[in-house]
């Protein structure tokens, strides 16, 4: 029988029951491999459920550092009888099945082309623990122990992890180590003659990177960026973001002298109230944000239009999930791009920042708070479930100690007193951005009435066509200004000169990085441009202009970024080739490289592929 052989390059998937305590055991497994110096990227595949439904944890181990989802499973840890058949079917031929052999499973339930490792986990656990919950939780640690023995993960690594986790609770450290060794010992005693082909070996490829999720990172960005008001309504997959903000604030935003809080977080009655609170706080000069997902964006659109037209700083972090409607709440997509870019009725356009990983979630969240005040408008941070809810190896966060907050054009009492002309909606600097005043600034000067209806440059009610046009054209100018303030796209040159390009963004990044590698191995060279924001800067047009054909890789059905590029840059749609992945799972390198090769112009196709196509 074929046997998958690989050191430090494999995918292992855990099939569990939701609510069984497996999540922390699985995370422990992933962290242990990291501590061996081998990069991992785990992904939770979970149901919209609290207890009982199937849940999976897929860990990609990659010494080369590929952090995207690879596709294909080399080892399945099958802990859930409900999904046994489907889980088994996912294993690559020559791969491994790890299961709980306490109860006999008929031969017909196995595959002849995978290697089977049965460990009586329940039996080991039940003979050592009496309490039902303990039996369940320690069974998870026992399987981690057994796996660590099989794969060659050092027990000292776990000891250190437990010690960090249970600092001051040494009893828990001891009991967890004991359970870990039960698994290790059983394997040593019963499977001594058996070895598997996938192994973890000490390496040094993790470096100074940190391991964290995008939601916590974005929350930290809001903390560093000076957000003081947050309003939100619980929705998967964004809820952990404001909750992380709360815990960071509890730690870093308490006035040491008085014990008072330098922040206000409101769990509102719905997304409409959440955005309303953010609009009110922004109007009154506090940095404010909300975090939500697609359905929340739909509810917020009226307010988004008001904030656009009344020119109020607002930050919305959209952790995208599968739509439309309730769609796939626990699956990932990049399908809110159009809904956010053009949110609300009338002519509206909004700034989008598009982070690729937790590092950029931190960076973009802080930048969004600056940009919202500089531009006096709504700024979206478009993350997604894949980045938001999964821990990812990422650059360590950094912060320039000299950095200050860009509060934008706020006219002070002194300036008003000195007689400076104040026209709330007047373009005095030529960049389309007007000056604003905050309520309560000056006893007699600078007050104005904010409204969503049209007005003249001095904020006086007016339904006159020219006044309306002045405003709308100024807003267009402001949007052009935004294109040069947002994070610039990043270009990646192919190793050989090429007329082919690929545009991608957000969570597609790690899969794309690996796809470049796969394609180059096959002699296909593409220059890459990673978009980091909307509106597009001139560099985006220049990139498209300098290539004959440009693939646009995105995770939605309707090629929403393709639409934005075609519409906003007035590009011939035929020059942009759509590569779309939208089944709710994170896109893989295998998918991208296959899709691109299939769409390659004929002359660039490899001879073997040309033949295959002719034969088909």
């Amino acid at each position, binding site marked *: 029988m074929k046997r998958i052989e690989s050191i430090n390059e494999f995918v292992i998937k855990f099939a569990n029951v939701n609510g069984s305590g497996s999540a922390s055991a699985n995370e422990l497994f992933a962290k242990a491999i990291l501590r061996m110096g081998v990069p991992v990227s785990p992904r939770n595949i979970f149901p919209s459920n609290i207890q009982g439904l199937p849940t999976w944890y897929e860990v990609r181990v990659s010494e080369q550092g590929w952090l995207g989802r690879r596709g294909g499973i080399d080892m399945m840890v099958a802990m859930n009888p409900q999904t046994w058949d489907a889980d088994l079917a996912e294993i690559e031929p020559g791969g491994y099945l790890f299961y709980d052999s306490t109860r006999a499973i008929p031969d017909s339930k196995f595959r002849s082309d995978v290697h089977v490792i049965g460990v009586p986990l329940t039996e080991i656990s039940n003979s050592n623990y009496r309490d039902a919950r303990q039996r369940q939780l320690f069974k998870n640690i026992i399987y981690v122990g057994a796996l660590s023995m099989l794969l060659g993960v050092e027990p000292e690594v776990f000891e250190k992890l437990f010690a960090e986790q249970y600092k001051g609770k040494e009893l828990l450290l001891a009991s967890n180590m004991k359970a870990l060794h039960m698994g290790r010992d059983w394997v040593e005693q019963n499977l001594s003659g058996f070895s598997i082909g996938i192994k973890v070996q000490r390496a040094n490829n993790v470096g100074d990177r940190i391991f964290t999720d995008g939601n916590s990172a974005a929350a930290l960005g809001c903390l560093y960026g000076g957000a003081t008001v947050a309003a939100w309504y619980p929705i998967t997959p964004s809820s952990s973001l404001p909750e992380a903000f709360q815990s960071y604030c509890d730690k870093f935003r308490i*006035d040491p002298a*008085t014990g008072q809080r330098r922040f206000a977080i409101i769990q509102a009655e719905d997304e409409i109230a959440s955005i309303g609170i953010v609009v009110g706080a922004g109007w009154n000069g*506090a940095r404010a944000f909300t975090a939500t997902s697609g359905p929340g964006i739909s509810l917020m659109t009226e307010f988004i239009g008001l904030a656009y037209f009344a020119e109020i700083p607002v930050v919305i972090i959209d952790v995208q999930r599968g739509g439309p409607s309730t769609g796939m709440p626990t699956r990932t997509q990049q399908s809110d791009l159009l809904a956010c870019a053009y949110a609300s009725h009338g002519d509206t356009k909004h700034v989008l920042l598009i982070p690729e990983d937790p590092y950029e979630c931190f960076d973009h969240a802080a930048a969004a708070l600056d940009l919202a005040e500089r531009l006096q408008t709504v700024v979206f941070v478009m993350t997604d479930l894949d980045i938001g809810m999964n821990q990812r190896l990422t650059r360590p966060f950094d912060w320039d100690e000299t950095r200050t907050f860009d509060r934008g054009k706020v006219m002070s009492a002194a300036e008003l007193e000195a007689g400076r002309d104040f026209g709330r909606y007047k373009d005095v600097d030529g960049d389309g951005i007007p000056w604003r005043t905050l309520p309560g600034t000056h006893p007699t000067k600078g007050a104005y009435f904010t409204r969503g209806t049209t007005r003249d440059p001095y904020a006086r*009610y007016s339904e006159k066509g020219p006044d309306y046009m002045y405003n709308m054209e100024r807003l267009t100018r402001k949007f052009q200004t935004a294109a040069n303030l947002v994070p610039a796209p990043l270009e990646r040159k192919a190793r050989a000169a090429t007329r082919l390009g690929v545009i991608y963004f957000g969570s597609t990044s790690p899969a794309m990085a690996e796809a470049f590698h796969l394609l180059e191995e096959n002699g296909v060279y593409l220059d890459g441009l990673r978009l980091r924001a909307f509106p597009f800067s001139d560099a985006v047009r220049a990139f498209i202009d300098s290539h004959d054909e440009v693939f646009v890789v995105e995770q939605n059905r309707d090629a929403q970024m393709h639409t934005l590029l075609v519409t906003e840059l007035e590009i011939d749609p035929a020059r942009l080739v759509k590569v779309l992945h939208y089944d709710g799972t994170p896109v893989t390198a295998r998918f991208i490289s296959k899709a691109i090769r299939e769409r390659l112009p004929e002359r660039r196709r490899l001879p073997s592929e040309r033949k295959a196509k002719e034969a088909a």
Partner: protein
Amino acid sequence: MTYIAKPRLHHPSLTRNKVGYTRRDYEGRISTLCAGCGHDSISAAIVQACWELDIEPHRVAKLSGIGCSSKTPDYFLGASHGFNTVHGRMPSVLTGANLANRELIYLGVSGDGDSASIGLGQFANAMRRGVRMAYIVENNGVYGLTKGQFSATADRGSKSKKGALNQDNPIDLVGLALQLGATYVARGFSGDKDQLVPLIKGALGHGGAAFVDVISPCVAFNNHSGSTKSYDYVRQHNEAVSRIDFMPTREEITAEYEPGELIEVEQHDGSILRLRKLDQDYDPTRRYAALNTMHERHERGEIVTGLLYVDPLSLDLHAGLNTSHQPLNSLGPEELCPGIGALSKINAALR
């Protein structure tokens, strides 16, 4: 509406209040509402209340939703920042504004369509959170700007201008405010300025969520016979349960009162509400008793007005959240950004 511009020059003999402003300094632009609209009387009462309270106009933030009532903040307190938000959502915007700067006085102006229909949820949640604000509903039971449809506060059986009978039960905002924890609840009538001005003054000085329902007849669409929100109907059925006098400091009680007739309440801003009960059975410091009385008398067809409930020990949202006394919008990087040292530690903990 009137087309006569207001003269810019003030008469030199106009009285100035303690902060140096005349009543004219509290006015706004010329109203564009119909002549005789109850809402204009409420605007005048707000002007009067702010002048009498010696509030500096720029220390007030006035916010509204959408509708005739919500246009009015342009017609008073011209030196205050105002925000005409979206339909039914003034409470959330005001909540956010209040969180950003707790030092201003917040005045929310809304209508019955705005607060009882599209914005009922936001009304309810602002009340239950205890957002410190004077929340005034200019209640006429009808959608004026869209030409006379019933609103959710229209009484069952009341008749529209076109003759249709309202089949639905009315939403009682006063009852809801009481139930949801508002700590100052009043009802006034736009046609009784003597009663209304002190009610608004009390609300502006209150330390928590203050709600004032003001019956404000719509002269264009809801002032006919068969309407229960017309001037005539309200005058005939108005039953005041209390009168309040508003005093900036504790003054000696000069008149003679029966025992239990007079209640004094010290408000958040240090001012004193001197409440004279007109009805022996009524106790405005007991929330559920107030609620019962209200409902019983509503059944008898009475429109109960006056200060209906007040909790002098009210706490607001900031107290619950324990936010810093220094307004959040005045904090800078020193107070808000933990810096590179803390970030290095965070990084280390994530390895």
